[in-house]
C-alpha cells in the first residue's frame, strides 16, 4: 500500500463545494475532507489495478445514442403542468433573480 500525503484538505472541499453550488460550513468542510480522503485512499488502489492500456485512448462502453427530431407537439400543451412545479413564477414565466 502506498502512503500519500494529504489528498484533499478543507480548502479543496470548499472549492469543490462552491463549484457544486453547495454551501458548507468550515466544520463540515473539515469533516467531509476526512471522509473523502478515506474514500480516495480506497479508490486510489485503481492505480495498482494493472490497466494495460492508455486511458486517454479508451473509448467508453458507454456512448451517445442520437435520433432525429420528431414532430414537435403543439405549443403550450404541457406548460401549465410544468410551470406549476416552479417555486417562483409569474404567469407563463419562471422567475429568477437578475444574473448580471
Amino acid at each position, binding site marked *: 500500500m502506498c502512503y500519500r500525503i494529504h489528498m484533499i484538505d478543507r480548502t479543496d472541499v470548499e472549492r469543490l463545494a462552491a463549484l457544486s453550488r453547495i454551501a458548507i460550513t468550515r466544520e463540515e468542510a473539515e469533516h467531509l475532507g476526512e471522509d473523502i480522503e478515506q474514500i480516495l485512499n480506497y479508490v486510489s488502489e485503481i492505480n495498482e489495478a494493472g490497466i494495460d492500456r492508455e486511458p486517454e485512448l479508451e473509448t467508453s462502453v458507454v456512448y451517445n445514442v442520437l435520433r432525429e427530431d420528431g414532430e414537435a407537439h403543439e405549443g403550450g400543451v404541457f406548460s401549465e403542468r410544468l410551470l406549476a*412545479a416552479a417555486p*417562483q413564477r409569474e404567469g407563463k414565466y419562471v422567475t429568477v433573480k437578475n444574473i448580471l
Partner: protein
Amino acid sequence: MPIVLDDLTIAKAHTHLIHKDFSAHELAEAHLKVIEAKNESLRAYIEVFDDVLAQADVADRTLAREGESVPALTGIPIALKDNILIEGRRASACSRMLENYVASYDATVIAKLRQSGAVFLGRTNMDEFAMGSSTERSCYGPTRNPLDPTRVPGGSSGGSAAAVAMGGCLAALGSDTGGSIRQPASFCGVVGLKPTYGALSRFGLIAMGSSLDQIGPITKTVGDAALLFSALRGRDPLDSTTLPDESVSDRRGAASRVLGVPRHFMESGLDPAVAQAFEDALSRLRELGYEVRDIELPHVRYALTCYYILMPAEASTNLARYDGVRYGLHVEGENVLDDYMRSRSRGFGEEVRRRIILGAYVLSAGYYDAYYNRAVALRRIIREECAHVFASGVSVIVTPTTPTPAFLLGAKTSDPLAMYLADLFTVPANIAGIPALSVPMGDVSYEGALLPVGLQFMAGEGREDVLFAAGRAFLGEDTTTGDGLQ
C-alpha cells in the same frame, strides 16, 4: 374465500382473480390492512395512495369484462420506490429537495403497469437519491427490517424490499445502481432482480448514475420476478439506452448447467456463517444437476473502486439540475448564486453532499486522468472478463449477494466506507451491465439473531432466462405456471 397473503404470489393471485375466488378490491383491502398494522413501526411506505380501492374497482370491472384474457398483472397490488415518477403524484427520491414535487409524467414502467391494470399501493422509502445501502439516509427516517426491526432492511430500495417481506404488497419495484435491489432483497429474505442494463426503460426514473441505473422487481418468488420483467422490458424511444427487442431473443439458446464461482474474490470480508450458507447452496445446486467450477475474474475486486469513481461523477452531474428554479426546494438568497447554494445545501442530505463533492473531485482538472479515465478503462476490462467467462461455457456466476446479513440500525452510519463495502458483490453486475438475481439462501446466525441472506446469480447480457431457470430450480418453484420466457 379468505385471502391468505403469506404464500400468495402474482401468479396465484391472478388465477384466483380469474376464478372469482376473491376480487381485486378484496385483495387490495387485505394488503391495506397489513400496511395499517405494520407500516407505522416499519416505515416501508412513505405514502399509501388514497385511491387504492378505486383503482382496484377499475381492475374488477376489467376482470368482469374480459375474464381470462386479462393481463396477469390486472388487479395486482404493487409498491413503487419513491424515485419512479407517477403522473400527478409526489415523487421525492426521499429528499427534502423534492419533498413537494409532483410528477408531470409517467415513467415508462408505470405506463406499462397501468396498461396491465396493476394497482399502485403507494410509494416506498429509500435512501435519499438512491445513495445508500441501508435506507437510513431517507429524509423521512429509516425503514426497519420486518425480520428484525432493530436492523436495516438494506438500501437503497429498503422500503420496497420491506413492503414485500412484511406482506404489504404482492411485489414492488426498486432501482439498482450498485446493488440497491439485490442487497435489500438479501437482507429481507425476498427475491430481487437487476435486469441487463438497457432491458428496462429508465424514462421517469430519477437519475443517479445513468450508465448504471436499472429499475427491477422485488418479489416473493422468481416466477413473479420473471412475470414482472416480461411485462416491463422493451425498447423505449424515450430512453435511447434501451436495448432493441431483437437483441434479447437472439441470445436464446441452451444454456450450460455450469456455474462459475470466483473464489479469489470471496476471500476476505465474508462472514463465516454466510460463507457456510454459500457452500450449502452450492451443494444444493450440484444435487440439482449443476456443475460448479472455480473461475478467475482478475479485475472484479476493483469493481467497487471503479463504482465509487464513476457513480459519484455521474451523480454529481445528474444532481446539478436541482437548483430550485424549475422545481424542487427553493431557499431565498441574496443573488442567483446564493439561491443555488442555500437551496442545494438545505435540500441535500449529508451523504448526497458527500458524493456530489467526491464526484466533482474525480472529474476535476488534474484528477480526471488518475481517477475517472482509469475507471472507464477498468470498466471495460471487467466487462470483458465477465464476457470471457460466459463464452467459456459457464452460464451463471454465483456469489453470496452480501458479505453479511442485515446489520443493526446505526452500525455503519458514521463510517461511509464501511457502508460502501456492503456492495462488494453486487456492483460488478452494474459495472459490467449484466443481469443479476438475488434469491434467499436460508437463514444464518449473525450477532445473535437468525437472519436471511441472499444467493446471487449473474448471467451474460440479455440472459435473464438463465437466471430465472437457476433461481426457480434452487428455490424449488413450480415451473408449470408460465412466465412468458420459456
